[in-house]
């Protein structure tokens, strides 16, 4: 019974994980828009952030909207776009592959990420002009993967589920966890506005949390699967 209950909860978990990846995708994809700001300022959303320990200062919550949008855009550019020294949000810049093939654009990781994502059945939209290993793309991929995982769970597709979880684990282990915490630490140290600092904190901890939790999901899925195999 206990096991059944546990597995029943998990589709929901997969959905929520997908949502988190979705939100983080938005945050890193581009500058904060008015609409996004409106949703972030929603009291319910803020209280969740606050429960997690993310502290957004009063002026973020109450200041004039247009000004805040402007400040965030400047901060976004300073942190992630340049043209001066910035923290490039691409894996190949931060992921030490151990063979010297990193630290610049379109490195080994870029190729791997692109191949991985395309092999999983997704394609880069022609209107997306960024690089394949931009942090927001990697997060978006995980959003889709977790969404697919939830579907497999709902359809009781145990083999598909295990496949999906292993795919997620591989992507987390070999990509996200290899560089996003390092990237986030730099963002945390360099951010001037609390929003990006706190979001980097959330991102870093979420990825670390995921790296641990995905093993549990796999072992649970394997246990559920084993009597039928």
């Amino acid at each position, binding site marked *: 019974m206990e096991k059944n209950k546990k597995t029943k909860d998990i589709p929901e978990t997969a959905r*929520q994980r997908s949502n988190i990846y979705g939100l983080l995708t*938005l945050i890193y994809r581009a500058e904060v828009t008015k609409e996004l700001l409106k949703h972030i300022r929603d009291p*319910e959303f803020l209280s969740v952030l606050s429960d997690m320990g993310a502290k957004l200062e009063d002026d973020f919550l109450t200041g004039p909207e247009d000004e805040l949008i402007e400040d965030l855009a400047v901060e976004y550019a300073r942190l992630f776009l340049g043209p001066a020294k910035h923290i490039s949000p691409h894996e190949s810049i931060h992921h030490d592959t151990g063979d010297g093939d990193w630290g610049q654009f379109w490195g080994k990781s870029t190729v791997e990420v692109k191949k991985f994502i395309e092999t*999983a*059945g997704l394609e880069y939209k022609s209107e997306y002009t960024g690089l394949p290993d931009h942090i927001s793309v990697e997060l978006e991929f995980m959003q*889709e993967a977790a969404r697919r995982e939830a579907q497999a769970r709902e359809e009781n597709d145990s083999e598909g589920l295990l496949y999906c979880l292993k795919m997620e684990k*591989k992507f987390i282990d070999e990509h996200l966890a290899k560089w996003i915490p390092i990237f986030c630490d730099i963002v945390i140290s360099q951010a001037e506005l609390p929003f990006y600092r706190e979001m980097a904190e*959330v991102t870093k901890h*979420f990825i670390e949390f995921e790296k641990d939790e995905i093993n549990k999901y796999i072992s649970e899925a394997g246990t559920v699967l084993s009597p039928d195999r």
Partner: protein
Amino acid sequence: MAGLNRRNFMKFGIASGALLAAGEGLKSQALAGTVKLQMGGKDFNFKTGTERKAIPTACWSCVTRCAAMGFVEDGRLVKMESNPESIRTLGKMCSKGQSGPNDVYFPDRILYPMKRVGKRGEGKWKRITWDTALTELSGRMKKLRDNGHPEKFMFHYGRMKASSSKLIKSVFLANYGTGTISGHTSICEGGKWVAQELTWGKHYDNWDFDKTKFVLNFGSNIQEAHTNHIPTSQRLIRAKVERGVRTVTFDVRYSNTAAKSDEWIPIKPGTDGAVVLAICNVIMKNNLYDKSFFKFIRATENVNASADEKISALKSHLSKYTPKWAEKITGVSASKIESTAKEFAKAKPAVVISYRGAVAHYNGNDTERGCQMLAAITGNIDNPGGRCRGIGPHWKYPKGPKDKPKAKKLKLAHGFPGTVAYPNHGVCQQVLPMIKDGKAGRPEIYMWYCHNPVYVNGDNQGNREVLKDEKMIPFTVTSNIVYDESSKLADMILPDATYLERWDWEDMVSPNQVPEYYIRQALIKPLGEARDLGDVVIELAEKMGMPLGVGSTKEEYVKKSHEMTAKAVKGFPGFDYMKKHGVWHDPNAKPKYYSHKKEIKADKLKDAILDEATGVYWNPKKAHAKNPEKGYAETKKAYKGYVGQKIGEKVYKSFPPDKVNKSGYLELYSALLKKKGFAPLPTYYPIPEHEKMKPDELHLTTYKVAVHVHSRSTHRKWLSEIYHDNPGWMNPKTAADRGIKDGDKIKVKSPIGEIVTNARVTEKIVPGVIAISYHVGREESGRYGSGRKSPVAGGANDNDPDLKNKFWDTYGMHPNWIIPNSDDPINGQQRWMDTVVTVTRA
């Protein structure tokens, strides 16, 4: 951030979800599509992080040739699966198919052309270039042809099908001018095919398990080995599991097919025919036959006999084959025969199935004819759920130059003169004995392909002596992937591409009466310098100054065949589609049954004449008949002009002849057999050797296992890991009489030799028999198959990490050393199951 825990993350997830759901304007996606969990079409290797490319192709391990999918990762073939789109295989694949990558990468594979140094068979080799190899071979071949003796080039193949056969045999060899060609069918199931050609015409019976209600099996090990294994075995299992279809298996051995049957009925070797005839007797005597089908049956000399006359003739003929008579011969109780007969006749539809266990005997021809009779008298012929005529695709293909020379040939492929009445599928086991004999001439060049003539025929020692003798055969050459018992006696070895490295269109029979077109794509480039013989013959022809004009590669040949087929077959989607999907069938096609009922309209008869003696309408022009007045039966290859069979006042397509001039009836009465001195109606012939057996003698019987391919798979480590030893099965009673215990070393002696092996004492074999499988017991075949490394360049890679895991050091004992080459006198089938032996403790 102390609050970053599972609970808060879930709350964060919900809040994020609400935010995402609310904000239509927030969508900013870089990625399109959905994540696919690919289980059959695409794949991803989690170990190496590499994309796997899935390429549709076709297996070649056994002759079933299942549509398949190869997974290639960074240019390396890593996995074989079935093609889920195939209507034949329904996405299933056996262990042989899955072991495909072993065939490509086994460490003893031959990767370069090799030329012998020193005496033939001495085992000394040097590497040569392809150019040197083909210059020498084409030079020798051209010299023969220029001297007017292309027939002195003999080509002997083990398996060559579909486009490979068309390109190599119908285009290359035909253009060169040799007809000295032998296949291998008589050591397989050629006798069954001849018996079918003598009854219903073109061979191949498909068993319609999807719709049958009862399965009666004589000596087919369909669950482990069949020429359409995976497509049919799974359907039989499905019929049993989903519809409770009963299966009754007669066999001397408790095979896995017997084990999966509802009843295993042990029977004395070589006596299946007696049971079949007794079953027919019960059905006729009790009037359980289907009278309506008798319209299409020939059962008397008179081709215009009425149904009642035919019934009466059969009743009379069968009256001596009573269940009590059969009981004495077969060991099967009369009551079991009686009840089985009634069950078969009443279960409509029912299917009688048969294979080598029943057919590879002295009397196999009439056992198979008896099975045809059983199906015919109960109306279970070409009907849903019965014994159906095989349906395959009809590819079109380039035939090469129009003006081909008239083929010259040495008569080596059809047995010693006068020994076999209808060797329609050759008598290949006698090729080497006939070369030794010399009366039919000897080839100067003997080339073999996908074949191992020393090992796969009977009398291995005799075969070896002929092939080794440079005086008998001056030049020997093979195209092979592995150093084996025969290639060690070659003067030149050409490294063949494996089936996973070459192109073909394919055409095996469908189990559901709807033809499936499918292809074999090269999954990777051939390893080393290996080349497909299809590509090689195109170059050989160029070197001899006789270009084939079919494209410069086999791939082009296959592509051209697609273009031609697309013009001829409605809806056929062409090469690009086939490369992507691997398989195609007409979605509107209905399963094909009852084609004999088709009436031939008057306009189709306008160039045909009626042969009164047989009732056959035939077109003498189409048969190239010079003297049609001799009549249909007496005109050479008149069957090629067959148009229809007159039955009553109408003309039907009925059962068109193939390879022999039979009438268009389903001939239970065979005027052709009568002419050759055999009984015209299916008859029981006791096996001469068995009649003379002494009390201490045993029957030697052989069998296939599920995980090996004839003589061509022991180098595949995944298969040899499963099966690498073949002790002789003996019943406890038989063993006890000889003081033999399980595991004892035993000597098995036949009139031509003896072998030493081990005994496996088991109830799974009838008393009086020793059963020894083949496949294993290899002198060569690499370190996984024989424990020996091949002494050739290119192979011998000692880095295969599985070499450390190889736990076995027993390699079995091949029984063919003590089985003579001997033929069914009607059809030339090698009599694998008739050898009499003594067995003693060694």
